[in-house]
């Protein structure tokens, strides 16, 4: 590969360092980290860094990586493209028709970024150099349990109180333990009904046909009526007035009047 004049100006040691950088490309934490490392070869205060020289170093680095057919991650290439652009801006006289930040502004920001990254690294190092808990200073070794006493406090507001009172005063009527009987068909009712009907039940008839009228619609009422009628029919079987059968599991239950033994 042909060294550019730029490279020729580098000392052998710097070139060796640059080679090492390329071999080590995986060790860098992104292009900014690489730039920071490159900037060290300038051996100056980061504030006095030559961004132009740095851009050239970086571009040379990328060129060499390409020559060595090293795969560089996309962000390194993006940075290279941008630095090439920055370089041209810094070298060419400013074009008044072009808006956007000037080359100097861009360079200043890059220098700021590098300085800031370096500052954060130093800060991190200083932080880690501090005395640390569990290494240099310690908490009390023995555990002393702080018992938790849980106190319950009850809260109620005046509004709660008034609503509570209003509730008690507007209840329909005071019926302790009164069930809503609207949809309950009692066994007494069923018995009465069945007694009246069995006289006509000469043949096996499904129990469903004995249900009272108007109880089939609402499932709750249907359930109640069916249960009551079934219970009543068992009662009548016991009394010897009815016969009951079910031909198969889940088949309809059928009733018929029991013939009086002659």
């Amino acid at each position: 590969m042909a060294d550019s004049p730029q490279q020729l100006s580098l000392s052998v040691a710097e070139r060796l360092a640059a080679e090492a950088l390329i071999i080590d490309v995986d060790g860098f934490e992104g292009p900014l980290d690489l730039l920071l490392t490159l900037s060290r070869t300038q051996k100056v205060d980061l504030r006095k860094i030559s961004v132009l020289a740095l851009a050239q170093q970086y571009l040379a680095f990328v060129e060499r990586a390409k020559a060595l057919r090293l795969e560089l991650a996309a962000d390194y290439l993006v940075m290279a493209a941008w630095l090439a652009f920055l370089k041209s801006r810094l070298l060419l006289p400013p074009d008044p028709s072009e808006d956007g930040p000037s080359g100097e502004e861009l360079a200043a920001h890059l220098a700021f970024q590098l300085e800031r990254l370096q500052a954060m690294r130093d800060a991190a190092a200083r932080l880690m150099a501090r005395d640390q808990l569990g290494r240099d200073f310690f908490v009390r070794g023995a555990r002393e349990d702080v018992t938790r006493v849980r106190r319950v406090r009850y809260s109620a507001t005046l509004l709660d109180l008034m609503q509570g009172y209003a509730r008690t005063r507007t209840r329909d009527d005071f019926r302790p333990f009164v069930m809503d009987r609207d949809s309950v068909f009692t066994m007494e009712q069923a018995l009465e009904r069945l007694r009246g009907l069995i006289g006509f039940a000469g043949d096996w008839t499904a129990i469903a046909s004995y249900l009272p009228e108007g109880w089939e619609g609402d499932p709750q009422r249907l359930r109640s009526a069916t249960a009551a009628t079934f219970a009543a029919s068992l009662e009548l079987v016991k009394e010897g007035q009815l016969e009951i059968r079910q031909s198969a599991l889940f088949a309809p239950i059928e009733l018929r009047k029991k013939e009086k033994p002659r």
Partner: protein
Amino acid sequence: MTQSAPPEESLFQAPPLAEQERMVEAILFASPEPVSLREMTGRMPHGCVPAEALELLRKRYAGRGVQVMRVGDGFAMRTAPDLGYLMQRETTEMRKLSRAAIETLAIIAYHQPTTRAEIEEIRGVSVSRGTIDQLLELEWIKFGRRKMTPGRPVTFVVTGQFLDHFGLETVRDLPGLKELRSAGLLDNRLPPEGMPNAAGNDPLEAEEEDLAQSELFEDEAPQT
């Protein structure tokens, strides 16, 4: 482990006793278990005499909130036994009063003095012992005078704490049914019986109530 006076010992200057005391202090503090003198010696620089430092430390902590105690053949730092009560962290939990309790309380407030049977009649369900106990415990209700009716049942009245809690000066400040209604808290329906007003304007009850009331004010006076 047993470094019975190694010869180098004399080569090093042992740290001053005050420094040794600091060391013993730190070791005892950080160790989860009691530490024996022998172990201290092993951990401290050569030439240290932990027994002496420990004695200083014990004296230093005498009567403090933390004490150096002998535990088995070791030493440990412990909080002073008389301060054990500080080692409780109280957490206060706010809980809403149950609906039954609120209603019972409301009935007592509006109808006091009132008996359990009356509360049950108004609420339409029996009042559990727990509900009454809870309200008594909260000191929001207390026993009033017995009713002059057959069986002389006990009555309940609300307390000064109750008034405090609800920010009332007297139970008469409780809004009446009419106000509840206009506030939209009540259906536009008249209650089945009389007693439409806050402090139950039942003339029969009025006298008794006054009695209860004065009672209430008596022991309410000292607090506030």
